[in-house]
């Protein structure tokens, strides 16, 4: 039984928590970082990194299959799932090692174990009492299910999906959001038949509607089945597989069902309620500066309602560390945080969709332009189709960038600067983008939006 004192105590060592810890020690604060599992959290171990490794193996499989189109003679002999696993695990292990080294080198005290909040300044970890002038809650999220839908056996969530040691013949995916479509994309590339079930009218329903429609078209072309706008009713399983029944009576048979219906906050039983933190359905409520109702207690990452993304966690962690250090950092709204869905084709966006912009600014106060990647040389060379859609305030700044196509995720950094810096298309048009890149498709779209399209009518 011991007591340790820090300027900042961080509960949870995922993206949000470790970023807060790293930034806080940089600012001269002492930090105790409490983690019950592995530093790096969901993103590093069972989220962003391993899924993107799988998606790269999937890309390699597709390239190998289609190599003939580009004059390369290859025989594709299937996917060796054990080797995919070794690749994926190797990537995670090396990033994990790097992160552990960094946290150590920066002088952060890591406390292993499950922490419980016992007062606004105190976290109990087993027999140890960890006291902080400030406490940052960063306990992250878990894969949710639906009421009455039990996970187990052939009904799995993303954690088990990652570790599957075989390629199923047929998969049903419940949920057409980012995690659902990413796994659907991987499995299809690996040779499985895939069927997505989404209750909302579109795949990736949080994206610009025209992008969702294009993704649906692209998935259809890839032979990925999906059912939209009809809710899941029930599932049964036996040794041969699962049968999913929808509310309209349709059934989908498959080897397994992936449940990808969103992630809930990991806050149950951790004492937040008892200590008096204001909560809503398990989420921790904060003001826009991430302070909870209790002085000195902050929250970051997936437990704060809004986008559940690793880089939002990083940003919030850095923000709170700077806030505690008195640097008065600037708030970035969720809407201006970039989002990428890494399926094939990729989807990337930042800022307002056309519908949201019309709601906020008035339909007659905005202008949009959609540039077809068919006009973009590099995209043709890569063999991808897609588009870039821009939303601007009429005679005002660009407020939305929405893209679909192979590799477009890497273009969102430029979109992010444009939207956050309130650039006008006219600021960009004198700066002709490099040729031939996919990047220049953004340039073409801005030129068109400024009323001076170059390679388009």
């Amino acid at each position, binding site marked *: 039984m011991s007591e340790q004192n820090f300027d900042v105590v961080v509960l949870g060592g995922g993206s949000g928590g470790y970023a807060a810890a790293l930034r806080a020690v940089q600012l001269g604060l002492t930090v105790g970082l409490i983690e019950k599992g592995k530093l790096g959290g969901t993103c590093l171990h069972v989220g962003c990194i391993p899924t993107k490794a799988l998606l790269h193996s999937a890309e390699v499989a597709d390239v190998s299959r289609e190599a003939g189109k580009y004059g390369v003679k290859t025989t594709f002999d299937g996917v060796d799932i054990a080797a995919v696993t070794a690749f994926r695990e190797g990537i995670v292990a090396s990033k994990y090692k790097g992160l552990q080294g960094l946290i150590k080198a920066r002088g952060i005290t890591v406390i292993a174990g499950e922490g419980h909040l016992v007062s606004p300044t105190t976290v109990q970890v087993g027999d140890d009492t960890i006291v902080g002038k400030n406490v940052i809650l960063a306990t992250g999220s878990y894969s949710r299910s639906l009421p009455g839908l039990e996970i187990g056996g052939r009904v799995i969530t993303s954690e088990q999906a990652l570790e599957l040691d075989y390629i199923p013949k047929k998969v049903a995916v419940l949920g057409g959001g980012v995690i659902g479509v990413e796994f659907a994309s991987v499995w299809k590339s690996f040779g499985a038949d895939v069927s997505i079930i989404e209750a909302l009218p579109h795949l990736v329903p949080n994206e610009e509607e025209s992008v969702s429609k294009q993704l649906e078209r692209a998935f259809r072309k890839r032979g990925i089945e999906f059912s939209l706008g009809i809710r899941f009713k029930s599932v049964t399983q036996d040794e041969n597989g699962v049968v999913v029944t929808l509310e309209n009576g349709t059934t989908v048979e498959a080897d397994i069902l992936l449940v990808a219906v969103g992630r809930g906050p990991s806050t149950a039983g951790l004492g937040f309620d008892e200590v008096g933190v204001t909560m809503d359905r398990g989420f921790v409520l904060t003001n826009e500066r991430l302070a909870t109702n209790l002085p000195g207690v902050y929250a970051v990452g997936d437990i704060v309602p809004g986008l559940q993304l690793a880089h939002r966690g990083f940003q919030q962690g850095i923000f709170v560390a700077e806030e505690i250090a008195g640097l008065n950092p600037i708030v970035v709204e969720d809407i201006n945080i970039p989002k990428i869905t890494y399926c094939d084709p990729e989807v990337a966006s930042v800022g307002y969709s056309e519908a949201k912009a019309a709601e906020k600014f008035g339909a007659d106060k905005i202008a949009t332009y959609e540039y077809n990647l068919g006009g973009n040389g590099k995209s043709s060379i890569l063999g991808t189709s897609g588009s870039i859609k821009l939303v601007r305030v009429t*005679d005002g*700044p660009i407020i939305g960038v929405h893209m679909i196509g192979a590799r477009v995720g890497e273009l969102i950094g430029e979109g992010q600067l444009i939207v956050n*810096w*309130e*650039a*006008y298309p006219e*600021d960009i048009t*004198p*700066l002709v983008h490099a040729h031939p890149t996919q990047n220049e498709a953004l340039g073409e779209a801005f030129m068109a939006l400024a009323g001076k399209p170059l390679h388009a009518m």
Partner: protein
Amino acid sequence: VPQAGRRSPVVSPLVRRLARENGFDASQLTGSGRDSLVLRRDVEAHIAGLALASLDTSADGTAADGTAADGPAA
């Protein structure tokens, strides 16, 4: 000193915003870049000048809004 109605080219949204946050319109400055493009240093110099001016004027008790912009940057 900004001339009313003058519009110099500003290509950087950052430069425009910096001016706006300090209460003037960057395009009212005479830029020192090529073809009088308003550069960040022009806006920074103008802000430094505003700070000096406000020191001077606050010494004799008058408001230092003589150089404020005539509207938000376009």
